């Protein structure tokens, strides 16, 4: 395996050159958020986000809590998380990083906006040295479920959904 290295901000061209099944290593400043905060981010305007220093164009959102226990992917098909994927892709989020199968509507929405869904293992201990810094970006009252700005170095992942194709549906067809 030769992972493709991607660094934020990520261009649409960089996404266009990738394929389902590719190994990735993600570096740069990414955002971390999950069930409680993602609907709030969807409801905010670009201007409101910019006032907090949050820029979605070319960004990565990692579906995780951030706490003293570390980080690790949560289930992305939880309703509030999956419902955020289409609107946030439309506003420039290029990679949604989490785990688990997503619905056909979400697969199509990712395709329409030129974004992808990647999965990673729950490797909290392994990721410890790859998380360089964390800070709350918005909604600190949500504790571990706030939106965090996280500087990361080579988080490993696999492209699961891209260009209208889902690795999960391929497995179902094989099975």
């Amino acid at each position: 395996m030769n992972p493709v290295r991607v660094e934020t901000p990520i261009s649409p061209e960089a996404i266009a050159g990738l394929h389902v099944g590719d190994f990735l290593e993600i570096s740069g400043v990414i955002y971390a958020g999950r069930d409680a905060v993602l609907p709030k981010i969807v409801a905010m305007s670009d201007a409101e986000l910019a006032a907090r220093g949050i820029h979605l164009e070319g960004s990565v959102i990692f579906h995780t809590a951030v706490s003293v226990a570390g980080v690790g992917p949560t289930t992305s098909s939880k309703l509030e998380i999956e419902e955020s994927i289409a609107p946030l892709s439309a506003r420039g989020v290029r990679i949604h990083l989490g785990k688990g199968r997503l619905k056909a509507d979400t697969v199509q929405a990712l395709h329409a906006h030129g974004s992808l869904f990647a999965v990673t293992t729950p490797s909290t201990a392994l990721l410890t040295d790859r998380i360089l810094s964390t800070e709350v970006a918005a909604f600190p009252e949500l504790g571990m479920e706030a939106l965090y700005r996280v500087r990361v170095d080579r988080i490993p992942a696999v492209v699961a959904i891209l260009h209208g194709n889902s690795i999960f549906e391929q497995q179902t067809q094989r099975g």
Partner: protein
Amino acid sequence: MGISSEKIREATAEALVRAGSSFTPGLRAAYARALEVETDERSLWAMRQFLENADVAERRTLPLCDDTGIPHVLLEVGEFAEFGGAQLGAITEGIAEGLRRLPGRPMAVLGDELQRIEQSQGLSLHSEDVIPPAFSVKRIPGDRVRITVLLLGGGPEIRAKTYRIFHKHRMETVVDEVAQWGIEAVRELGCTPAVVAVGLGRTHFEATSLMLEAMARGDLERQTPLELQITEKINAGGSGPLGLGGRVSVLATLVNIGPQRASGVRIASVRTCCGIEPRRATVEVG
């Protein structure tokens, strides 16, 4: 007097940290078996990530997963053990201490009953506020107590199912139904390969208790023909680790069958534990 509360507190804390930061030998053996049969590149990558993560977690005493789970306790009390309310309190204190040390994820929801459901008052900042549910208690021979701490992650709880099966007086019917639930669960669960824990009993409470006991006591190294059959049927679905495809969606199955009711119905509780589970550790104090 009775068994030293201080010993119980310390042993429970130690068990919680061990459960949250290391693989049992049985889980390592199950991965070793899986790596021998797997050929898919992505599946191999994912399973090696799980093992490498466990190595780092154990060496540096770090949480295996940031979802450090809800602590559950299986308590086995010797028939001659001097054990009472003070010692029960010491177990609860040991759980809190273990969560401070691991550290556990601060995910206790604040507020009254309705506020907790809506999560409108935010979260506690303290790891130790994640309190365990009621303990499962059994009597064993001897004069010691055996405390097993289990940490149950949230992902498997989304997919776990306790429901009735019309068995038609054939074990095969039960196996097929359980395997079908397992196939559906591993397709959705992001953190496979799974260990499937199964409890078969008369009531929903009993089936779930038996399933929990399967997680606590089940043998991942010596699988029964029934357990192997369920594993093989789910693996034939082809989901693979993380749903990326491959031969290994399930590492092993742990089945615990209790008393049964004279009826055409069995109650099954099936939990597809994620690839770092069962997170369990047992200590004996006496």
